[in-house]
């Protein structure tokens, strides 16, 4: 799988979507001068440093960043991400309750989010978790 830490070093502003608990990761990035935030609607992140406690699909949020890391893609509607932005999309087909976009391939991720240029892509050994690293197509 892709090393998020290594990739993130190349960017100045990073947004992590549907992140769940990445407080430690955010702290590390911010400590070395990268402006990194997470957007997650789970109330347990209310008033948590570097978190925006909103639903990025339905609420009004600013998605301006050099890199957007969208974790748990299987749980969200495929929103239109800002064109020309680098993205890392990570999703699975574990079919948990609450999953609305089961991810079964890299091609599906590329198509759902209109990724134009691919830097890297792959999956785990069991072929249940998929990722794509690339750039959103300019429309």
């Amino acid at each position: 799988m892709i090393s998020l830490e290594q990739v993130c070093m190349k960017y100045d502003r990073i947004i992590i979507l549907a992140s769940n608990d990445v407080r430690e990761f955010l702290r590390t990035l911010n400590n070395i001068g990268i402006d990194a935030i997470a957007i997650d609607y789970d109330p347990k992140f209310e008033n948590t440093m570097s978190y925006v406690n909103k639903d990025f699909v339905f609420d009004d949020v600013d998605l301006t960043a050099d890199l957007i890391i969208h974790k748990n893609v299987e749980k969200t509607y495929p929103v239109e991400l800002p064109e020309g932005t680098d993205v890392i999309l990570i999703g699975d087909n574990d079919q948990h309750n609450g999953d609305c976009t089961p991810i079964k391939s890299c091609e599906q991720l590329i198509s759902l989010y209109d990724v134009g240029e691919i830097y890297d892509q792959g999956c785990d050994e069991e072929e249940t978790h998929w990722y794509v690293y690339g750039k959103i197509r300019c429309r």
Partner: protein
Amino acid sequence: MNFFTLKWGSKYGPEYVNRLYGGLKKHYHKPFTLTCYTNNYKGLREEVEVKDIKDLRKFGPTDRVFTYEKLILMEKHESGVWLDLDILIHNDITNMADDPSDYKMIWNYWNPYWMKSLRWFGKGASCHVNSSFVKFDNPEWLIKFTNDNWEKIEWTYKSLDKYLFYQHARNDRLQYWDEGLIENYNVSGKTLPGKVTIFNTSHKYNNKGIEDVLYELHEADSRVIKMWKSYD
């Protein structure tokens, strides 16, 4: 007061509609109508007004947002109370039905919020509201939000209740019946506290991993069945 209910498919027979009417007759003490949106009006008592369920399928057939027809109901009728068929009214609901709220629904007081709902919130697998008994009075904000966001809503949510919980309860837009007015037979047991008892089972079939034994109204204990049949 205008009451509304939905019936399609074969899960519930006409006796559910007819006894719902009987329950209203006994426990709502003002003039009222009950309208049933259905695809099969056979066996319904003549006091029940019948309309085609297709009138509420504005966004077409879908296996998502289960019972989204209730939302469209509010576009067709400015105010009223919508009721699920699988509820038992057993006390005076006149004040509830006449409540001035623009939108009031059930908060699942019988489930511990943290353990049953907040814990699973981030997984998208949570729900702590129930739309089995809803008073509405022209909630324009809800109708507009639904129309503006339907594509996302349909994609994201399996049931109406989940949509309401994640988008509107999360943003404190909803009002709820006071604790104790509405109870859940499958949690609160057979004592029938409050004014209305729901027999909530659909979540078992819409989610994996729910092992609870859940009773439908027609499977309840003899006291409940006797009361229910008395509404014939």
